[in-house]
């Protein structure tokens, strides 16, 4: 009898309402990339091609005591040699103090923009990469609480680190507040780090009518750095600002427009204008976009087509660099075949 009671007590935490789902999703892809160098470019770059295979596994495990374990692992093999296995995400999540605690490595993106995201102060990524592979998360300790129409997130990223070689590896403390007000989502962000001091920003996404959405972000930085001569250089107070819209029609044609200022960008590339048009038909998506840099006349045009049938995805993209943007590279072509499981 005592043994039964002891076993029952020991099992009690396991009998609490489970809250996480077990799952495992995988995908494999093969990708071919070809780069055409600008003749006579100052770095004497040559035309190049690259072929690689990439596999991704996302999983979640409902662990005892209301814990959940999540992970994203990737493996990549380049045909010209070299293989890598990477833990992109691995985190433990559990309820704590009326909210939820996350400990581990996790992707945490925050901003409302598409091509440029000033409020992505924790997660930084190459947002205009052609067919990018899986993002790599940031080591963190995070606490999040959720109301019906609001949320708060506190993140200690790269705990124990001060200033690192690259900004994504810097130690920092960040706070994000979110409020849902009907047709508008509002965000406020505060971040403290040794590299940039205090950073504060706000953003919104507003659904104007059934087809139009407007969004904007603004980030003020106590200090910022600029990428010059292959290294980060101190450059005083900084700011990043973005304004954009999306427009979608009943016939599934959509347009995205964004304009932004980024004072941490290379000189001459601080101001950008992007216009993208896309059409969706059943299994086929076609898109074209132009990025224009008014300060130096740089122009980057991209065309993409993708076909998705069940678990299969075939896609091809071609990007042309013109004006100052084409000083090193004339064009890039990428073709991908991917299957999900």
């Amino acid at each position: 009898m005592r043994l039964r009671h002891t076993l029952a007590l020991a099992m009690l935490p396991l009998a609490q309402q489970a809250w996480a789902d077990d799952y495992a999703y995988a995908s494999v892809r093969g990708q071919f990339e070809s780069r055409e160098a600008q003749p006579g470019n100052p770095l004497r770059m040559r035309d190049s091609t690259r072929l690689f295979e990439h596999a991704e596994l996302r999983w979640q495990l409902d662990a005892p005591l209301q814990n959940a374990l999540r992970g994203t692992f990737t493996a990549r093999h380049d045909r010209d040699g070299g293989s890598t296995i990477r833990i992109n995400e691995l985190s433990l999540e559990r309820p704590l103090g009326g909210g939820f605690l996350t400990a581990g490595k996790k992707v945490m993106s925050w901003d409302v923009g598409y091509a440029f995201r000033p409020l992505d102060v924790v997660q930084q990524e190459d947002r205009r990469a052609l067919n990018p592979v899986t993002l790599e998360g940031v080591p963190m300790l995070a606490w999040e609480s959720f109301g019906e129409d609001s949320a708060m997130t506190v993140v200690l990223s790269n705990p124990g680190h001060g200033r690192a070689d690259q900004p994504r590896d810097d130690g920092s403390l960040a706070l994000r507040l979110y409020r849902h007000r009907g047709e508008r989502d509002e965000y406020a962000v505060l971040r403290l780090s040794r590299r940039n001091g205090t950073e504060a920003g706000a953003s919104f996404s507003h659904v104007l009518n059934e087809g139009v959405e407007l969004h904007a972000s603004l980030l003020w930085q106590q200090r910022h750095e600029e990428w010059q001569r292959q290294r980060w250089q101190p450059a005083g107070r900084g700011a990043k600002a973005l304004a954009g819209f999306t427009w979608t029609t009943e016939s599934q044609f959509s347009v995205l427009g964004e304009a932004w200022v980024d004072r941490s960008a290379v000189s001459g590339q601080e101001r950008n204008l992007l216009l993208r048009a896309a059409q969706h038909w059943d299994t086929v998506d076609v898109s074209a976009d132009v990025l224009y840099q008014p300060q130096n006349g740089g122009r980057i045009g991209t065309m993409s087509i993708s076909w998705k049938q069940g678990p299969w995805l075939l896609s091809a993209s071609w990007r042309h660099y013109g004006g100052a943007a084409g000083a090193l590279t004339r064009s890039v072509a990428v073709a991908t075949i991917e299957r999900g499981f």
Partner: protein
Amino acid sequence: MFKTFAVTMLLCGAAQAADIDAILKKADSFRMLESSAQIETLVQTLKNGSPDKEKRYQVLVRPGGKALILFRSPGEAGQKVLMSGDDFWMFLPGSARPIRITPLQKLLGDASTGDIATMTWSGDYTGSVAGETTVDGVPCLELELSALRKSLSYQRVVLHVAKNDYRPLHADLYAASNRKLKQAYYVVEQREGRPQVTRMVLKDEVQTSRETVVNILSTRPRQFGDELFNAMYLSRNDVKP
């Protein structure tokens, strides 16, 4: 005299609205008995009568027009769409951020999430009994319904319910432009001791070679926390079924 007539007409109008609400609630009960539930669906697409695609979705529904759609098929697993009244968000696991989308953007995927997640008419539509007719030999009431919210996928619905028990049999679904988009046929079968809609066949009136079959595999009453329908929660773990 005029005052008496006006009051009588107002009362008649109110009575008819009450009748419509009662009919729609009864029709809803064949689609979803519980107001908060987890629904497993299998959506099959046919082209020219031949199977084309098959996708699985798990739908978590709560009162107040809240629904969370979890994509479960290979190639799109991990994607989520959150609906909260007139507001919509999409989550793609690759970008790990919830994206606010417009009502028209939510139609961009393979299946209209409105077809999968909107399981009720009462509260979303109002209208009147337009007449009587028969569908496949069953005597029906014809209900002329208009959407109460602009974000609903279909702004006008002509719904046919059986005259004897108000079970849904057929509907014509229209866009805001009054263009007929789809015809829906409802299959009611005995499940767990009561008649339930187990299958919905949607015939596309624009791309006429297309037909979509939404199979309701199971409906289970469940209670969900507020956080599950908060857009910021989309980047966290999935709940256990």
